[in-house]
């Protein structure tokens, strides 16, 4: 297990950032992976990951495809179950519950409760094609959070304004460009007010000219501060701009981690050097 | 309730009636496959009139009940033409004709699955239409659709009891006759039901096996 970085303070390297945070108080991280492994059959794709994400922290996961970045995010969103290890969300195990002093596999009730703290934006948007844009955003607040029609509407419109789509409320997703779809998907996840949001290669399926509009929306949200973000991305400039901390993973391990200017400026490992050389 | 010895006593008669069912199934299937191919080829004809006629007639046959078609053939054809066929032959023609319209759609899906380049290659090699179809198109179009054709074999088999309506003494008619003699519907109808079920499941199993074999061969 050559993973590093446990409990590193959230604001390392944020001195150069426009936003300032309080010096790290001994608070529980919003998410913490402890020796998390994942195998498909005989193939182990994650070899024991340890990683803490502080409340409000923005981390970027970079690395070659197949390094297990996406799996890390999907396990947090409860879409894939870790083979072993513990993922804690606000100090509470995500995939396990305690019963008679022992941790046992969580039931759906527990997962449902835990999921309310987590949001996700997908590579392929996954908008609901049978609902108009507004309903895509209001459906979950109304049916999952049980919020009244009007409040859900107001919240949804607010979010859609934030992503610049207030004029598309009554349109079906099929009529939107890829960039617009992804912005709706961001609004849809944001309206649930999660503590941490996973952005899983959200620009990888977009035409190059549409990448910018999505990234700038995410950057704006990041600057508002209070929500933690896990940005799984291939956009190095974006990672440098937005992340408080960058994590470079390869072959199912975390290889190097640090503030962006350090990681991109003075990469230590050969893996990272050769990886970054491809983006110059 | 269930009388095993009675069931055993009527089983030989039912099994021998199965022969007629098999004959009807086999010939109807052959007819459906042949005529279906003709319809499929004609529906790609260059001539609009042929295309429209073939598609229109096929659609009409597909949207009307087989039973009524069989009645039509059995009762009106002799009146209209003076030709009188046996009930079994009429039934086979009815079944074959009905399912040829379904089979032609199966062929068409197979033909449409062929890369356009194959037609162009055939044209470039100056093949005649007959040679194009027989040497290039059909050898590629048919193997992938064999499992679906197998399913239609089952469908036709399960439809043969309809021939009871025009006095063909197949399995169901035999069961009816036994019931009329002994007034015991339980055993004959149950045996017939089980026979149909077992045979169609067996053929379905075979078709599935065939499908796997074909997938294997073509995914190399």
């Amino acid at each position, binding site marked *: 297990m050559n993973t590093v970085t446990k409990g590193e303070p959230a604001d390392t390297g944020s001195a150069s950032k426009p936003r300032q945070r309080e010096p790290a108080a001994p608070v529980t991280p919003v998410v913490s992976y402890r020796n998390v492994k994942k195998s498909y059959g005989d193939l182990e794709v994650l070899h024991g990951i340890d990683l803490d994400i502080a409340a409000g922290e923005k981390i970027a996961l970079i690395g070659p495809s197949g390094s297990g970045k996406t799996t890390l995010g999907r396990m947090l*969103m*409860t*879409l894939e179950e870790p083979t072993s290890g513990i993922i804690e969300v606000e100090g509470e195990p995500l995939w396990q519950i305690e019963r008679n002093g022992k941790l046992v596999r969580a039931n759906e009730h527990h997962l*449902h409760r835990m*999921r*309310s703290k*987590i949001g*996700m934006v*997908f590579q*392929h948007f*996954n*908008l*609901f*094609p*049978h609902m108009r844009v507004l309903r895509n955003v209001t*459906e*979950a607040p109304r*049916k*999952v959070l049980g919020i009244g029609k009007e409040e859900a509407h107001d919240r949804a419109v607010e979010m859609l304004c934030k992503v610049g789509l207030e004029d598309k409320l009554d349109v079906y997703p*099929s009529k939107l460009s890829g960039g617009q779809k992804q912005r709706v*998907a961001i609004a*849809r*996840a944001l309206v*649930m007010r999660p503590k941490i949001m996973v952005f899983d290669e959200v620009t990888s399926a977009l035409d190059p000219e549409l990448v910018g509009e999505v990234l700038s929306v995410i950057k704006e949200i990041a600057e508002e501060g209070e929500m933690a973000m896990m940005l799984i991305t291939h956009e190095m400039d974006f990672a440098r701009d937005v992340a408080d901390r960058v994590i470079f993973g390869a072959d199912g391990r975390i290889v190097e981690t640090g503030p962006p200017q350090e990681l991109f400026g003075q990469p230590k490992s050969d893996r990272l050097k050769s990886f970054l050389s491809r983006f110059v | *309730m269930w009388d095993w010895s009675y069931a055993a006593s009527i089983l030989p008669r039912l099994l021998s009636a199965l022969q007629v069912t098999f004959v009807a199934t086999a010939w109807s299937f052959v007819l459906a496959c042949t005529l279906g191919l003709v319809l499929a080829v004609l529906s790609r004809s260059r001539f609009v009139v042929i295309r429209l006629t073939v598609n229109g007639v096929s659609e*009409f046959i*597909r*949207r*009307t*009940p087989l*039973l*009524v*078609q069989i*009645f*039509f053939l059995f*009762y*009106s054809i002799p*009146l*209209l033409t003076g030709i009188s066929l046996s009930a079994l032959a009429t039934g086979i023609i009815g079944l074959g004709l009905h399912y040829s319209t379904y089979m032609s759609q199966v062929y068409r899906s197979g033909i449409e699955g062929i890369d356009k380049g194959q037609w162009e290659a055939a044209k470039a090699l100056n093949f005649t239409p007959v040679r194009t179809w027989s040497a290039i198109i059909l050898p590629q179009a048919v193997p992938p659709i064999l499992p679906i054709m197998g399913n239609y074999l089952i469908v036709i088999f*399960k*439809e*043969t*009891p*309809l021939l*009871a*309506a025009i006095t063909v003494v197949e399995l*169901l008619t035999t069961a*009816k006759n036994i019931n009329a003699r002994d007034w*015991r*519907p*339980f055993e004959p*109808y*149950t045996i*017939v*039901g089980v026979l*149909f*079920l077992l045979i*169609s*499941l067996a053929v*379905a199993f075979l078709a599935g096996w065939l499908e796997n074999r074909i997938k294997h061969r073509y995914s190399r």
Partner: protein
Amino acid sequence: MISKWLEWMPLMWEGLLITLEVTFLSAIVALIIAVAAGLCRLSRLQWLRGLAYVYMLLFRGVSLLVLLFWVYFVLPFLGIELSKLAAAVLAIGLNYGAFGAEIVRSSILAVPKGQWEAAQALNFTSAQRMIRVVFPQALIRMLPPLNNLMIELMKATSLIYFITLTDLTYQAMILRSLYLPQTAQIFGLLLVLYFVIASVISLLARMLERKLTAGRM
């Protein structure tokens, strides 16, 4: 000739009503069973999946006419007396429900995995995922094959002639015995009537499809 056709009308009209009634009732039964069995087939509970599997295997493998005979002639022998109408609706509904279940199952499976995941990420319960997100999308995929199935079902109602329910086919057979020289005309008319019913079903299904997909695709 016109006067002949007019003489036939009352009887054919009665038959038409029976055919439509049996078609409608069997279609309802078949669709309910199809959705129920199709969903059970995808259930997390193994016994429920198994039950649906056995049902679909049996009732797709059986011959409808034999099933109809069994329900109508054998069940009374076992102490279950059904009216002709109930026997017809039950047999047709069970048979076509099994085929419909396969359509429902495969349409649900054809909904992209991302839709399930997005619904889960938004924390919908598993029932909400199915009802609000997946099923409405599967429904659109189901409509064309269900349309064909309903036409097949309508055609299959002609088999109720065998248990002497007085449907279109039955009435035509009566007319034939009264007007033997016009046999071809009677059956021709009968075929046209079935064709018209099938075309109306198809038209309605397509209108429904268009309504459900309006603006979306």
